[in-house]
């Protein structure tokens, strides 16, 4: 039989193949996967403060993660259309000092340790996928390409922070009208575009479930900056506004890995 391998290839190797689509005929796939990435470029900007049981600890930001859901319909054995909805979580560096105002008038800057800001992006993306001539979507290795819309916001929560007095006697100044919300979370999210290419593999483990994994390359750009996206009147972001920080963070998020499950219908 071993000879058959070579011979059969000889006979039919060059023939054009047509196939019926789907995993045992099932052409729709629903994907649920988790994405992860090491934000290498962000790590070059140094460590962040993270809250561990209420205590701020300086750590490198080692991991971005995301939850991706999607659906595809295989129009042919090697071509499918679909869409996906993703939620991506990242952290950005918080400001290292803030301006505060005195009750008696005037203001001063104050150094602080602030927990890294959590950023959440929702992505909606139509996509198409294609595979080799003898592929059989939704299973196997496929190339996914999509252009989607993103909406990014800073997560609203009570971030841990600690001030450092900057007065000569190291005493904290008496503050009036101090608002611990350094960012106005209620402000508009900013919008962006996502250009995506994924090299994805779906390996069936039974007649309707598949393990899916792959590598994803993104190019995220902001398209709609809010008029003002930052701190309220009483305190404000001293280094840069949140928009530019977030935009930069998104832009540098280029590669991630996916792992999850797909279901064929």
């Amino acid at each position, binding site marked *: 039989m071993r000879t*058959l*391998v070579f*011979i*059969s290839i*000889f006979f039919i190797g060059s*023939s054009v193949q047509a196939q019926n689509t789907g995993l045992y005929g099932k052409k729709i796939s629903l994907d649920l996967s988790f994405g992860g990435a090491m934000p290498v470029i962000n790590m070059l900007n140094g460590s962040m403060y993270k809250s561990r049981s209420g205590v701020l600890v300086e750590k490198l930001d080692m991991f971005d993660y995301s939850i991706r859901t999607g659906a595809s319909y295989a129009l042919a054995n090697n071509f499918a259309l679909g869409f996906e909805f993703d939620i991506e979580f990242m952290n950005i560096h918080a400001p290292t000092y803030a301006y505060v105002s005195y009750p008696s008038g005037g203001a001063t800057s104050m150094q602080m340790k602030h927990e890294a800001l959590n950023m959440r992006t929702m992505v909606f993306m139509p996509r198409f996928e294609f595979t080799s001539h003898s592929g059989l979507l939704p299973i196997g290795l496929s190339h996914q390409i999509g252009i989607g819309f993103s909406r990014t916001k800073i997560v609203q929560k009570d971030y841990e922070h600690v001030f450092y007095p900057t007065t000569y006697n190291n005493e904290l100044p008496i503050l009036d009208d101090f608002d611990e919300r350094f960012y106005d979370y209620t402000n508009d999210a900013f919008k962006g575009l996502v250009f995506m290419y994924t090299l994805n*593999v779906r*390996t*069936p483990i039974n007649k309707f479930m598949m393990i899916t994994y792959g590598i994803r390359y993104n190019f995220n750009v902001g398209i709609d900056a809010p008029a003002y996206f930052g701190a309220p009147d009483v305190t404000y972001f001293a280094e840069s506004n949140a928009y530019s920080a977030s935009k930069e963070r998104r832009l540098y998020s*280029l590669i991630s890995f996916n792992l999850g499950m797909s279901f064929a219908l």
Partner: protein
Amino acid sequence: MIIHAELDKNVNFNTMKFLFLIPLLTCLTSFGQADFNNYTTLLSAGTIPEDFTVLTYDKLKNDLAEGDKSLRRTQEKVFFEGINYAIDDLLHSGYVTYGDEISTYLEKIADKLLKKDKKSRSELRFYTLKSNSVNAFSTEQGIVFVTTGLMSQVTSEAQIAYILAHEIAHYLEHHVVESFSYKTKNRRHSIEKMSVYSKDKELEADMKGLEMYQAAGYSKDEIIPTFDVLMYSYLPFDEIDISLSYFQHSDSLFLPPSLFPDKKFEIKAIEDEDDSRSTHPNIKTRKEAITEALDNSKNWGTDINFQGDEKFKYIRNIARFEAVRNDVIEAKYGRAVYSIFLLERDFPESMYLKRMKAQTWLGLLMYRLNNKISRTIDRKSDYEGASAAIHYMIRKMNKDELEAFATRQMYDIYTDNSSDEEIKLIWERFVKTLAFGENFKLTEYSKSNYESAKGIFEINNIIDPNDSTTVQAKAPKSKYDRIKSKKDVDLALNFDSTEFRTYLLPDIIVSEDFNAIFEKYKDEFKAEKDLEDTYDAMSYSDQRKFDQEESKNRLKLGIDELIVVEPTVYSYKKNSIDRVKSEKLEASFSEVIEESSASTGIKIYPINSSQLSTEGTQSYNERSTLLNMLMQITNNNDMDPFPVDYELLNQLEENYGTTKVMFSVVEHRYDADLGMGAIYAIIFYPAAPIYFPMKLLMGNNTEINMIILDTKEARIVTGSSHYIKDSARKHTIGAHVYSIFTQLNSTK
């Protein structure tokens, strides 16, 4: 084990690292003529032995549990895995028979040789290997294979006994494992040094075998001739001159004497050949060693054909008939013609030989028209002995001549046996080949045979001045008469003594039967040609659409029943096959085929080696027949051979009710193939996050190949090859199989 180094190409070469082979050598017989007139190929009989039914993985487990003290644990795994999978590949190749007349004959010889060693006898099994290689070899598992090629060449039972004794000695002395151990420990030794070791083992087996042979009571006189068998084993099984008249079935058929060589071809074999790099000592060394031992031994028996002279000749004739069959399967048509000539001397009425002869001429025509005739005959440098005349003649004829010559031969077989269904079908395929070949033009052939045409020519053109009658009878021709006459080959005025082929087919070209079939196929050919022309005239995009449409319909055959033979998986690990993984995946492959057939409404009849324990010998024989057909088709690749086991295939159709047979193979290997790109990606490190993940993800390569054969037509009717970048898991394969089955079940 190995006495000569002609390895059967069907025997896994790696296997041979663990095995030693023996090639050896012949008389004609009249015994059993009635049987041979309606010969059918050798089939297995009786209860199927465990060697064929136990899974290789289980055999391996058992061997590893028992172990071998002479090997380290790591060596044991390599050794046992190697021998078990290699031997099982051979056992399941479709070329091995058990319980058949030859195997039974061998078993009886072994009974005699091991009369006093019941334990060893009970351990050994003897099987026949259908191959024209002249070989015998034993394995560490206690299996002794003897080829039909060897059986066709020997001249006595005693010679077989000596060969078997030699093989049994290898087994008893554990030479296979010793050799493996030696080679593993001395990998850096030169071939010459390895050769010395191997030759020592061969001489040792010769001597031990001699003792066993003598004790069994066989004749001393048959030892030395056994080595002659060996030395001339590359020649056909007999050496009888053939003449051109063999091909002239009527006196009026003219074949120029120049077609045949005017000299004899020397037989070049010598006893004292250089064996410094051989696994076996040369014949001279072996003869000398044996002669010395013979001189020092006494009390010899006298048995030559202990089971009877007639029985021996009968068994050898079976092997010789198999030799013809093997030649046809392997498209060694030059050899087949000679073997048929030899056998026809004793079996002139054998319908089997006539069928094989018809297939041979069909094969020669096909290869000649495809300009591949060299594949079917010996190279000029290999011309030796009487059989070389056949190869010489075939090579000498140009395309037109061989086409006409083969047509003549085929037509004569057909007209003599027109009531035989098989020959009739071969004839039809032959005419179809002519019609599709574009080379054959009826107008180029004369309605007169050579002698008549020549006679008329002489009357018309050679005017004897002394013969007044001739002069008066022949009126002078004008220039225009002469031009016109040259346009009509049948005007005997146009006689050309160098164009013998023109006069070979006078009766055929006027035959209504021939013309009806020829015209039918000519029309078919024309229709195909028109379609091709239409395709060529299409624009690129129309061709693309056409191809896509064809592709969609390629598998849509409306199949509702299918014989599924041995779904096979090869999963590669580095450069070798991961046998264990492959065997496990094969079970999954078979499962998904069954599931897919059930859900798509195709009834399948699985013929797997894994089912042999329950299905038994009939299933084994059916499987072998189908594998042999596949091998015949693949050996003849782009030709259209007639199935050598036509009758057996017909029986298969009667048993299963379908003529469609599926063979399928999955291959998988993981190779990320990082190559030099990895170095560049490291140097230009921003590329690394793209280069490495992509390469690693795309490293899986799985190929699912499937072909459907039609036993009636003996050809591949459709096929499918899916190349996917994914691992070879059960449901990955299953999804593709389902896709294939869905299409097979549908119609265009």
